[in-house]
Structure formats: structure tokens, C-alpha cells
């Protein structure tokens, strides 16, 4: 099994939740993949918490050829992270997409792809005992105060 990460999930896990170390440990049991387009998006913008060093320690970056059948769903924008994540998963049946946004999740469901989100990854880290119950509570607090948009439903799941 490998996980292929979208940009907002990456930012939530690394910046908002500060889970770089736990993810690195999780990477011993599963491949954590980020398309190069996701890396470029992650580095873009003016967020103070972005951390390329940790990003590179945690994720294996890959070049992805965008699947043409996905283009109409994304209004023919091949540059966004999600289309790259889903394209990768379409060609690699062992992959699980890590996407938080509702629209991207709908496309994954439409194409029958494995899917989780940053909350699912946090749960996996708990399951592997890579974060404690106390850390989990602190993560929930940080997610609530985050400047990133996370739906109420997802917040409830932590």
C-alpha cells in the first residue's frame, strides 16, 4: 500500500498538526508519495509554517502524467495537485489518495479509487502508536484554530 498526498492534506499534516516526525516513522511501513506538482503547490504561497526540508524527508516525489479522462472534471486544468494525485492513483492500483477536499474525493469515488484524508492519516498514526492520545487532543485543537479550511464533518472525526 502507498499513500499519494494532495497539497492541502500535506499542509494540514505538516504545518497545522506538526506531524513531520510521526509521518517519517509511518513512512517505514508505507510509501508516502507526493507528485512534483503537489510539492510545487506546497512551496507556493506565503504560509509561514511551510517546511521544505521536512517535506522532502517525509515524501517521495514523483513525476505524474495527467490522465486525459480526468481533464473535463477539472475544467482542463492539469496543473492542480488533485488531478496529479488522482492520475497517479489511476495508474497504480495499490495507491490510496490522501485528499481532504470534497470535490476531489467525489472524483476518487467516481473512479473507484482508494481514498482517505488527513484525518484518516492521523487515525493511522494513532493506530500505529506514532502519536499519543494527548497529542491527538492537541491536534484537534490546532485543527479548529487552523487558518486552513477544514469542514466541520472532518473536524468531528478527529
Amino acid at each position, binding site marked *: 500500500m502507498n499513500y499519494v498526498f494532495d497539497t492541502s492534506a500535506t499542509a494540514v499534516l505538516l504545518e497545522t498538526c506538526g506531524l513531520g516526525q510521526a509521518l517519517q516513522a509511518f513512512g517505514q511501513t508505507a510509501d508516502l508519495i507526493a507528485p512534483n506538482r503537489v510539492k510545487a503547490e506546497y512551496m507556493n504561497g506565503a504560509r509561514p509554517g511551510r517546511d521544505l526540508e521536512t517535506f522532502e524527508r517525509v515524501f517521495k516525489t514523483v513525476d505524474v502524467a495527467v490522465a486525459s479522462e480526468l481533464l473535463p*472534471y477539472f475544467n482542463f486544468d492539469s496543473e492542480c495537485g*488533485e488531478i496529479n494525485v488522482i492520475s497517479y492513483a489511476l495508474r497504480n492500483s495499490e495507491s490510496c489518495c490522501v485528499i481532504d477536499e470534497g470535490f476531489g474525493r467525489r472524483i476518487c469515488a467516481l473512479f473507484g479509487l482508494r481514498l482517505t484524508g488527513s484525518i484518516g492519516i492521523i487515525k493511522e498514526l494513532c493506530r500505529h502508536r506514532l502519536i499519543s492520545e494527548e497529542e491527538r487532543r492537541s491536534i484537534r485543537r490546532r485543527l479548529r484554530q487552523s487558518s486552513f479550511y477544514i469542514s466541520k464533518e472532518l473536524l468531528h472525526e478527529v
Partner: protein
Amino acid sequence: MSAITDYGLETPSRAFLVLALCLDDRKGRKSADILHIQKIIRYFEYLRQKREIDYSNFKLGQVSYELEESLRTLQESGLVTNVGTNFQLTDDGRMAAEELKPVTSADDLRKLAFAKQQLNDLSRDELLFFMYKLIPESQVNSTEAPRLMNRSRELVEALYRKEVISAAMAAKWLEMPESDFLTSLSKKR
């Protein structure tokens, strides 16, 4: 005896109407009003990148007289009925849909279902705005586009929250960085 040949359902516009009305939207409803039916089938054709139905740019964006005429024919044939402003299949219509499904490609059915789930519960303004942005040339003769473009911010946010568009599309339509769009949404949480 076959409903497909009896009612001329080999014609794409009739077949897509019957199929569109047999599929569930996100709330489990099958019925739809004329504007939503028009846009669902146009979005479906956009997704499959294959045009089999004539659409023209009119006051409400791209609409098809061919579809309207086919809908009338289906009503007269007793396959479709209206309840208020919504149209729905009759028992005969549902049987015709069951005949159509196996002769329609799985990919087309999947795309049509997706189009209905994405669009059928949108408000009229959200629906028109989405289609104008998706197919910019459909704004040409529109009487509604200027009014809706003035409400871009509100409508884009609604479409994003309803999971009809991605943050990347939302940001592009609002001409702002994606991270700024997401940050602005979190402040309204």
C-alpha cells in the same frame, strides 16, 4: 415489443432525458425541472467531450430546443409527466429506462449520474453561474451572466462548499491564490 424502438429512444436527446430522469441526485430525488435537465445533459456532454445534442447560446446560457421538443414528445408518449415545475418518469418511462441502461455505455451512465449528482440540488443562480464559468462562450447572449458575475464570490464559495468545484477551480474563477481562498473560507467557518 421494445420501448426503445416504439418511442424512438435511439435518438440521443430522448435517451439521455429518460436516463437523466431515472438517476438519483445527491438527495435521492429523480425528478428535475427543465433548466436543471438542460444543464445536466449539457454538463454530461461536456464531461464526455462529445456533442450529440444541439445547444444554442440563449438568455439562460446554452439551452437546447431539441431537448425541449424531445421532452414534449416523451410527455405526449406517456413516458414523462410533470409534478409542478418538475418532470419525472412514469411507470412506462421507468421501464423504458431499464431497457436503455444495458445498451448505454457504462462510462456514459457514470458521467450522466455524476452530472446529475453535481447539479440537481444547486439553486438556479448557482447552476447558471457554474455553467457560465465552465463554458464561457455560453455567456454571449445571456441576460443573467452580468448579474451573476457580480455575485461571483458568494456563488463560488457556495459551489465549493457543495463540493461541485475544487479549491483550485474556485481560486481560478475568483482570480486569487488558492491558499488565500481557503484561508478566507476558514475565517467564515
